């Protein structure tokens, strides 16, 4: 064989494809079409932005072996069903539904398209072709709560939530437990605004809470609106949720919980390409790098940073679990005995608040 420029190029291309060994066979044929649906817009700089970053990561990692599509602002209800069918009909073989309220629709459409794999984020209903994936956001909340407990002057923290589902309740409780380890008098006031993404409502809630003396706000909604209000009003601080939001509140963001979905999307897509995908149920956190803690803000002193890092690293090496007893609920009754760690099943059905959390209206 004569060595000319063309064969060298070919060899080079083959070598470049080596890291994608698992997908190479597939790449020669049709790319795997992967669909994503988001409940908000990819520009929310939070939750949906983070999912879309995951999609981009997947596309970058697998290149021509995948073709990704997304639909944003999909309402939780029958409209979602139509969008899922649309994606399935256009040949997407792996579809990620990234919001809790998509559950009913995913199950219905999955029955109509048995050869399409679905993965539902933060849900609870599985099927043969419907897997679940979630992140241990509460581990991030424990780091935030530690910082809030140190820095809050009034000891009054607030948590702007969407719906009182276990996912959110768990976050509130993790924030309260960790803050009260530092400041036993700290309280958390939850407010539910019945939506994942409505900057006006999020900002209104933040203003009302600040007027009531709250000086640290956490939010479990998709955008930076509450943080912007916190910055404007000059309170002690708030936290980025889903992504680093320091651009919106450079002085006020104490740190952020960053969702890092890319590796999960990559693993699932590879499994579908290799034919090894099964409906899974993953719940990963700081240790697996699915949840990350963003840079600490300027108000976080070295001492507080050290305390926060201890909580973060403790959760990574497994020496610290925020839901370790004794834990009392907000009526004073003991729910978890000393030394006992709550199980995942208990956490995923959590519908009560720990001591120090005001009962929401």
């Amino acid at each position, binding site marked *: 064989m004569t060595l000319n420029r063309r064969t060298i190029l070919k060899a080079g291309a083959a070598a470049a494809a080596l890291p994608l060994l698992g997908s190479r066979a597939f790449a020669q044929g049709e790319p795997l079409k992967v669909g994503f649906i988001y409940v908000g*817009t990819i520009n929310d700089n939070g939750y949906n932005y983070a999912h879309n970053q995951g999609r981009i990561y997947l596309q970058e990692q697998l290149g021509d072996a995948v073709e990704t*599509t997304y*639909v944003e602002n999909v309402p*939780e*209800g029958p409209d979602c*069903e139509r*969008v899922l069918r649309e994606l399935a009909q256009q040949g997407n073989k792996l579809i990620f539904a990234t919001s809790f*309220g998509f559950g*009913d629709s995913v199950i219905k459409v999955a029955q109509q398209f048995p050869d399409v794999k679905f993965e539902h984020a933060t849900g609870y209903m599985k099927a043969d072709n419907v897997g679940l994936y979630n992140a241990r956001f509460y581990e991030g909340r424990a780091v935030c709560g530690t910082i809030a407990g140190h820095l809050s002057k009034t000891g009054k923290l607030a948590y702007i939530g969407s719906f009182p589902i276990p996912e959110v309740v768990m976050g509130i409780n993790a924030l309260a437990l960790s803050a009260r380890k530092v400041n036993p008098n700290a309280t958390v006031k939850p407010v539910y605004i019945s*939506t994942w993404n409505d900057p006006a409502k999020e900002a209104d809630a933040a203003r009302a809470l600040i007027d009531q003396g709250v000086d640290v706000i956490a939010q479990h909604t998709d955008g930076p609106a509450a943080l912007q209000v916190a910055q404007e009003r000059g309170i002690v601080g708030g936290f980025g949720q889903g992504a680093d939001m320091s651009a919106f509140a450079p002085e006020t963001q104490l740190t952020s919980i960053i969702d890092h979905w890319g590796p999960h999307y990559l693993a699932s897509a590879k499994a579908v390409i290799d034919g090894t995908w099964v409906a899974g149920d993953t719940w990963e956190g700081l240790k697996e790098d699915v949840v990350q803690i963003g840079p600490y803000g300027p108000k976080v002193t070295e001492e507080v940073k050290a305390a926060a890092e201890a909580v973060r690293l403790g959760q990574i090496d497994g020496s610290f679990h925020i839901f370790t007893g004794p834990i009392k609920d907000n009526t004073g009754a003991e729910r978890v005995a000393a030394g006992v760690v709550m199980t995942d099943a208990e956490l995923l059905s959590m519908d009560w608040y720990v001591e120090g959390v005001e009962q929401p209206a």
Partner: protein
Amino acid sequence: MPFRLEKRPEPSRLMQYLTPAAAVALTMVVGAIIFSLIGYDGMGAVREIFLTPLTNAYKWQDLGVKAAPLIIIGVGLSIAYRANVWNIGAEGQYVVGGLAGTWVALATYGMSGPWILPLMVLAGVVGGMLYAAIPALLRTRLNVNEILTSLMLTYASVQLIYYLIRAPWKDPMGMGFPQTRMFAEAARLPTIIPGTIVHLGVPIALLVALVAWFIMSRSVFGYQMRVVGTAPHAARYGGFSENRTIWLAMLVSGGLAGLAGVLEVAGPFQRMVPGFPTNYGFTAIIVAFLGRLNPLGVVFAGIVMAITFVGGEVAQTTIGLPNAATGIFQAMVLFFLLGGDLLVRYRLRRVASTPATGAA
């Protein structure tokens, strides 16, 4: 500037019927230009939004299901608007209709029988009517503007959903998510074409439009509505009571919005969820005007709006158009329609600029 709007003595009837079609056509042209200028495939966007839903038979079921509530609410609004009664709160009446139907569905949970669905529908219609009766009462008794009250009651209705599904009606198996349980089989609207999602609400929508058209053009009630709207003084001489007209207009539009609500909750949703208010009540305002306040026109307008919703999703998945594009196209349709209406009724006349008087 030396331009003035001057009322045309006799607006062209032909033009009045042509403006909706012209508005849609202009939207397509201007939309293609705008989206090309900002770097998207403009022609592709128009094709995917306006044509794909029509040419792809698989999409027809979606069009029917999406258009049905728009048509039912739009028909009711067109009757009210004909009588110059401005019910802007159809969304709230739709919500209360859905809640009333949900109440029946939950109260009869565990029972079966063909009477459950009709009872739900009745409850939905009555619920919508009662909710529309509040602005009607305030308007006729205290002369409070119905635009404000009906609109504000919409926000109250959404809070009512949140209250009911968070506490008394919460699904015991829902992992704490604020929603009701799935309705029992007897409380779900049947699909009428097997293998599709087309439910009974779709033919009901067509039937509602036909009946409304017949009543509006052939009955005294329809005559009253039209006369009160176009010539209130003549109507008063003719013995038509203004208050009675307001009541009728609000009850009919509210009842139909309630009907759309109960059909929606029993059909596509099959349970009450926080995402139930989907702005059908507001979109139906565009539908009523695009349909020339004529029940048969509303059918076509409802389908056009459904096309933009369904097509907007197609355009997102195929050419990556952002979701907001759908809203831009819908707004353009309304803008061109209202602009066209203005030019049909008025003419733009250049006025010779007059020198300032009293200077000399």
